[in-house]
């Protein structure tokens, strides 16, 4: 899932200052699961903005709405009326959702209420961790399902850096060494032989370094 964090209320107020009628638009998918931009968070953010607005005399008129997915035109349609009524939209979706709304409503200022941070999973209650860098050429099959690009701070593709201490990364001591995990996992599934293969330098063209990416499925086009 896409993981995002809320911007601070003063940051949001600063962004929204030139406007009066504001729609806080939530997204019911990834950001709901990571508890940053769903219906409940929209309500909390709206309350905080109303309080801040009254204290600072900004006279915001804040409306709230949460749709199933902001990155999908079918669902964006459900927000049409609310968006038309607003002077500006504060979207609490990921960056993709914010841009989908902005593209659909070219005359309407659309702002991001969240900082989109990474692709990850819920590790434990209240803790999300990054698992995928969306590099565009997955190598997970070679590393026992543990991604050295995302989970090794140095993106080492051919063995550990040697800096880890007690199975912890030397860059982020609160995170496990990815190569320790890879070794253990490959040992558990009897694939340690894989480590003898030398991985050539990665071609990053399929990643964001190669420019904005797109996926075209001719079989699904109309």
């Amino acid at each position: 899932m896409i993981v995002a964090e809320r911007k601070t209320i003063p940051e949001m107020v600063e962004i929204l200052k030139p406007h009066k009628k504001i729609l806080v638009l939530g997204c019911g998918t990834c950001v709901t699961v990571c508890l940053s931009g769903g219906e409940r968070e929209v309500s909390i953010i709206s309350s905080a903005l109303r309080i801040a607005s009254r204290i600072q005399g900004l006279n915001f008129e804040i409306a709230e709405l949460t749709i199933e997915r902001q990155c999908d035109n079918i669902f964006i349609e459900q927000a049409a009326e609310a968006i038309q009524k607003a002077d500006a939209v504060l979207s609490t979706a990921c960056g993709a959702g914010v841009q989908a709304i902005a593209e659909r409503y070219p005359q309407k200022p659309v702002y991001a209420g969240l900082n989109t941070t990474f692709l990850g999973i819920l590790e434990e209650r209240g803790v999300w961790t990054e698992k995928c860098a969306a590099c565009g050429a997955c190598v997970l099959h070679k590393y026992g399902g543990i991604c050295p690009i995302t989970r090794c701070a140095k993106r080492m593709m051919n063995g550990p850096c040697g800096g880890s201490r007690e199975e912890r990364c030397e860059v982020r001591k609160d995170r496990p060494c990815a190569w320790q995990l890879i070794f253990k996992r490959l040992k558990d599934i009897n694939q340690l032989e894989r480590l003898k293969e030398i991985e050539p330098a990665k071609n990053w063209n399929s990643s964001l370094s190669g420019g904005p990416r797109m996926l075209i499925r001719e079989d699904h086009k109309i």
Partner: protein
Amino acid sequence: MNNNFEPKIVAFCCHYCAYAAADLAGSGRLQYPPNIRIIRSPCTGRLEIDFFMKAFEAGADGVLVAGCEEGSCHFKEGNYLAKRRVNTTKQLLLEAGLEPERLRMVNVSAASSQKFVEYVRDMVETVAKLGPTRNKKTTTKEKTGAI
């Protein structure tokens, strides 16, 4: 401090402890300031950040959250959940421009009516010192949550 100021404080009280303590305080004819409006909750773990924010948005000068003693929650960990949510809300209040001291969590057992009374007095005193909330009353035009 405004001497005529009578703070309005919303008190979310757990059914299994603080609400019973408030009830016992009444039965025992203990006096406490009439500034609090008690809302009974099945457990403080049921209380969400949104509830506290809605109370402040609607013009509450303070919010008191009263749960079971730590380690004796009827639902095992509801009061610990509430404690963390209260702390998160304090940060939000600060960001919005309100004093975080306007929100407080206390722990009382069902038998501690005297303690409940002391907590209420202390909360009223704290909020009275802070003065009225700078967040003016909600206008009818705006959507408000039910509290």
